[in-house]
C-alpha cells in the first residue's frame, strides 16, 4: 500500500537522502516527494510520498497535498509513528478531506483517468491505536459531518428537491437528532409567507425543516439558520445561462447547518442547538412571485420584491423571525450562499461575516481561524438600512444598479428581522465551491461552515458555568 511519510527539515531518512537531494526536496512545509518503490522494505510495488511537516505548519494542508500526490491509488496509509497524536490525526483528516469526490452518477465505476481522485480508503498507522481516543473519534465524526454536507451540496437538483432533501435530513434521526417538518401547506398558517412565495413557482413545494439536538444544558438553544434553495434559476428575474448549473449548490447553507448538527451529535455536545432550514426551489413558473409583489413576512414587516433572484434573504428572513419567536435562542447564526458581491469582496478564501453583536462576531472569527474556515467581518450600516426604504411597503428586499454592496445590503435587510437577539450572518457565496482541484482542495463543494459552527459551539456554548 502506498505510504505517506511525514518528515521534518534536516531529518530526511538516509535511504531517501540521495533522491531528496536530486529533487531539491528539503522537507519544507508545502514540499512533497514521490519515491517509487521502497528501498527500506525492498517492495517494488509500494510508493512512498514524503511530505514536509514541522511543528508550525498546517498538518491538514500537508495531508491534503499527500492525498493529491497519491490520487491514483485506491488505498493509502499515513505513517503517524513518532508524530504527536494531534498532528497524526490532522494529517489523516486533511488527506481524507482532499480525497472527497463527487457522488458517482456514472454508469460504471468512478472515472479511471490518471488524474482523478481514486482514493477509497486511508489508514493511519500508529504505535498504539487505542490511545488515539477521543481526538480520533471527533475527527472522524467531523469528517463524516462534512462529507454529509458536501454530498448533499453536490447532488443535482433533479435528484435533490426540497422533498428529497427533507428525506435525507430525516436520516439524522439515527444520530439522535430530532427532525420536525413544516410542510408547504402549513407554511401560510405559520405566517411563513416569504418562504411560501419563493417556492410558489416550482412544482416541488417548499418546506421548513427543524433539526433539534437536545444537548444536556438546561438553556435555550443556539439556532443555526441555513439557506436551502435546492435550485435557483433566479425566478422571473432569471439568471444568465453561464454557470447556472452551480445553482444546484444554492442549498449549501442548509447542508452545512445539517452537517454541523451531525458533528455536534457525533461528539455528544452538551449544548442544545436547533437548525432551522427553509427549503425551496426558485423556478420560473406560472404561479411564480414577481418583481413588484408585496408580501407580508412572518415578522410582520411587509416586503417589496425588487428582484426575484434575491430570494435567499426572503426565506432567511422568515426563518430567522420564526426561530427567534419560537425558541428565544441564545444566539442565531445564519449561513447562506447569499450574494455574488461577497465573492467579489473576499474571493474564495474567506466568508463574509456580518453581526449585530461584537462578542459573537469575535467568537466566530476565532472559531473560523481555529477550524481553518476563516471569516472576515464586513459592515452593514444604518445608512444601508435606510436605503432599503420602499415607496409601498415597510422595506425593499434589495436595490438594483451597478457596483452595489449587495452583501452588506443583504445583511442590512436581514437585520430588520432579528431585533435584539445576538445574530450573525455568514455569507458563503464565495467559499462554498472550488471551481478546480488543486493540491490543497478538491473541486466542488467545500462544506465550508460545518467545522466553523461546530467549533463555535465548542468554544462558546458548552460551558455550564458561563451560559
Amino acid at each position: 500500500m502506498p505510504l505517506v511519510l511525514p518528515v521534518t527539515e534536516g531529518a530526511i531518512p538516509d535511504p531517501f537522502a540521495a533522491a531528496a537531494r536530486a529533487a531539491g526536496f528539503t522537507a519544507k512545509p508545502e514540499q512533497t516527494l514521490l519515491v517509487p518503490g521502497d528501498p527500506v522494505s525492498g517492495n517494488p510495488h509500494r510508493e512512498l510520498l514524503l511530505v514536509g511537516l514541522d511543528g508550525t505548519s498546517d498538518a491538514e494542508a500537508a495531508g491534503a497535498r499527500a492525498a493529491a500526490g497519491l490520487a491514483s491509488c485506491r488505498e493509502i496509509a499515513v505513517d503517524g509513528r513518532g508524530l504527536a497524536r494531534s498532528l497524526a490525526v490532522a494529517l489523516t483528516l486533511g488527506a481524507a478531506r482532499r480525497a472527497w469526490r463527487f457522488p458517482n452518477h456514472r454508469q460504471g465505476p468512478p472515472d479511471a483517468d490518471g488524474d482523478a481522485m481514486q482514493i477509497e480508503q486511508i489508514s493511519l498507522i500508529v504505535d498504539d491505536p487505542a490511545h488515539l481516543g477521543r481526538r480520533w473519534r471527533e475527527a472522524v465524526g467531523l469528517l463524516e459531518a462534512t462529507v454529509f454536507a458536501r454530498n448533499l451540496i453536490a447532488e443535482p437538483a433533479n435528484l435533490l428537491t426540497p422533498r428529497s432533501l427533507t428525506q435525507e435530513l430525516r436520516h439524522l434521526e439515527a444520530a439522535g437528532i430530532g427532525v420536525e417538518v413544516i410542510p408547504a401547506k402549513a407554511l401560510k398558517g405559520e405566517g411563513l409567507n416569504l418562504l411560501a412565495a419563493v417556492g410558489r413557482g416550482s412544482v416541488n413545494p417548499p418546506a421548513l425543516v427543524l433539526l433539534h439536538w437536545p444537548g444536556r444544558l438546561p438553556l435555550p438553544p443556539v439556532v443555526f439558520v441555513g439557506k436551502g434553495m435546492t435550485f435557483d434559476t433566479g425566478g422571473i428575474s432569471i439568471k444568465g445561462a453561464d454557470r447556472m448549473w452551480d445553482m444546484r449548490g444554492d442549498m449549501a447553507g442548509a447542508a452545512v447547518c445539517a452537517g454541523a448538527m451531525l458533528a455536534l451529535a457525533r461528539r455528544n455536545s452538551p449544548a442544545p442547538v436547533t437548525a432551522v432550514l427553509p427549503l425551496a426551489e426558485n423556478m420560473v413558473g406560472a404561479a411564480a412571485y414577481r418583481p413588484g409583489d408585496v408580501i407580508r413576512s412572518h415578522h410582520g414587516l411587509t416586503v417589496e420584491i425588487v428582484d426575484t433572484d434575491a430570494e435567499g434573504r426572503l426565506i432567511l428572513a422568515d426563518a430567522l423571525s420564526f426561530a427567534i419567536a419560537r425558541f428565544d435562542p441564545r444566539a442565531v447564526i445564519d449561513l447562506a450562499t447569499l450574494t455574488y458581491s461577497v465573492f467579489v469582496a473576499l474571493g474564495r478564501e474567506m466568508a463574509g461575516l456580518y453581526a449585530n453583536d461584537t462578542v459573537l462576531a469575535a467568537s466566530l472569527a476565532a472559531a473560523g481561524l481555529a477550524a481553518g474556515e476563516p471569516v472576515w467581518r464586513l459592515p452593514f450600516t444604518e445608512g444601508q438600512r435606510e436605503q432599503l426604504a420602499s415607496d409601498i411597503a415597510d422595506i425593499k428586499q434589495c436595490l438594483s444598479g451597478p457596483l452595489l454592496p449587495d452583501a452588506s445590503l443583504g445583511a442590512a435587510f436581514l437585520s430588520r428581522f432579528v431585533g435584539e437577539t445576538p445574530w450573525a450572518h455568514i455569507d458563503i457565496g464565495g467559499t462554498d465551491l472550488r471551481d478546480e482541484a488543486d493540491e490543497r482542495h478538491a473541486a466542488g463543494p467545500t462544506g465550508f461552515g460545518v467545522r466553523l459552527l461546530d467549533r463555535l459551539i465548542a468554544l462558546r456554548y458548552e460551558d455550564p458555568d458561563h451560559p
Partner: protein
Amino acid sequence: MLEVAFSKPVPPKAGAVVLLLAEEEAMTGAAAALNEASGGAIARAIEVAAFKGQKGKTVLLLAPVEGLTRLLLVGLGKRPDLTTLVVEEAGGAIAAALSQEAGVTVLADGLTPPEAAHLALGAVLRAYRFDLYRTKEKPEDKPKLTGITVQTEDHTKARTAYAPLKALAEGVYLARNLVTEPANVLTPGEMAERCKALTKLGVKVEIMGPKEMEKLGFGALLGVAQGSVQEPRMVVMQWNGAGGRKPRKPLVFVGKGVTFDTGGISIKPASGMEDMKWDMAGAGAVVGLMAALAGRKARADVVGLVGLVENMPSGSAQRPGDVVTSYSGQTIEVLNTDAEGRLVLADVLWYAQEKFDPAFMVNLATLTGAIIVALGQEHGGMFSNDEDLAQKLTSAGIASGEKVWRMPLGDAYDKAIKSDIADMKNIGGRHGSAIIAAQFIQRFVNNKPWAHLDIAGMAWSSKDAACTPKGATAYGVRLLDRLVRDHYEA
C-alpha cells in the same frame, strides 16, 4: 470660502439666527429671550414639530421676530454624546438650510470653544461650491450665504481653535477643486503646476517629468503614461514642521493621480466614463492634506508624493501582455491596461522608500470597483501590514467622520498574481480583486509599516452629505490630518 467670525453673545437684530438645542434641554439665556421676543412662537413651533433636539433634526421658522428673516433650530442629540463630529454636522446642516441668507448668527453659548470652531468648520465644508464654469446662472439661483458669526462667551478661544481648522478647510477645498476640474483642464502637467502653489505655505515642491523618471527607471508608471500626449509628472511635496528637533523619519503619503482613465487599450465602456476625471482623487487628497498640514503648521515632518498620468488608448499605448520593469527592479506583466493605478503606485512607493526612509507610508487610490461592491460608500477600504497603524487609522476615521474598514491580506490572495512570464501580473480574477490589488501594491512595500486606502467608493458622492455637498468629497484629507494631529505631532 465662507467668512467665519466669532463674537460674544449680543441679541441679534437682523438676518438669520440659529438656536442649538441638545436633547431634553430647555431654551435658556439668549434663546429664551428670543422666544419671549417672538411671543412664544419658537416654543410653539418646537411643540408642533415635535422637536426634541434630536441629532440631525432641524426646524425652520420664517420671520419669527421683528427684524429677523429666518430662525433655525438645530438638534445636537444627547449632550454626553456630543463630539466635534456631531457639531461639524450641525454646522453643515446650518449652511445647507440657510444658503439663501447672506449672513447667519449662531447662538452657541452652550458649546465649548473647540466645539464652536468645529461648528464653523462644518458650515464651511458644506458651503463649498465649484462655480468656475457656470457662466449664465441667474443670481437668484446662486447661494447667497457669505458669512457665519458664531456667538460664544469664549469667542477669543474659539477663534484660536478655528485657525487650524480653517487651514484644514482650505486643504479640503483645494482637493475638491482638483478632483472636480475636468480632465481637459487638469492634465498631469497642470496638476503639477497647481502643486507649486504650496510653496507659499512653506512646502518644498519638486516636480519630475518623463526624462527624470526614465533616468530613474520608472518603467511601470511610464508604461501607463505612454499612450497619452500629456506628459506624466511626479510631484514630491515636503513639509518639515517638526522643527528639526531631532532628525526623525518622515510620515509619507502617496496618491494615485490618473487625471483621466479611459482604461487604455483595455478600454472602459462609455456609460459612466465621465467619472474617470476623478481617478486622481488619491493624489488630490494628498495635495489637500499637505496644504492643510502646512497651513496649520503641523509639528511633523511629512512628505506627500503623487504620480500623475493620463491613461489613453492610442498607437503608442501600452498593450495587454506587455512586460514592464518597475523602479524596484521587479517585472510586471500588464494583462489589463485598466489596472493602471497600481502600476503608478508601484514606482512612486518604491521611490518614497528609497529616498525618505519613512516612519510609515499611507497610499490613497481610487483603485477598484470591487471595494465598492465590498463596502459601499460609507467606508474606505484599508489594507495594512501594521496593526498599530491600522488601529490609528480606524480611530482617526471615526473621529473625522471619514471612516475606514479593514480588509484582509494573505498569501492565498497573493497567489492570484503569479505570472508565467514576469515576477507578477497586474490582475488576478474578479473575485477578491480589491484584495489582490492590495497584494500587488504590497510587493512594492519594502518592510515598512504601510496602509493602502482604496477610496474608489468614497471620492465622489452622488448625493449631499452633512458636511459634503454632492460631488468631490476630498475623502482622506480630514482622515489623515486627524491621524497626524492625534498621533504624530511633537
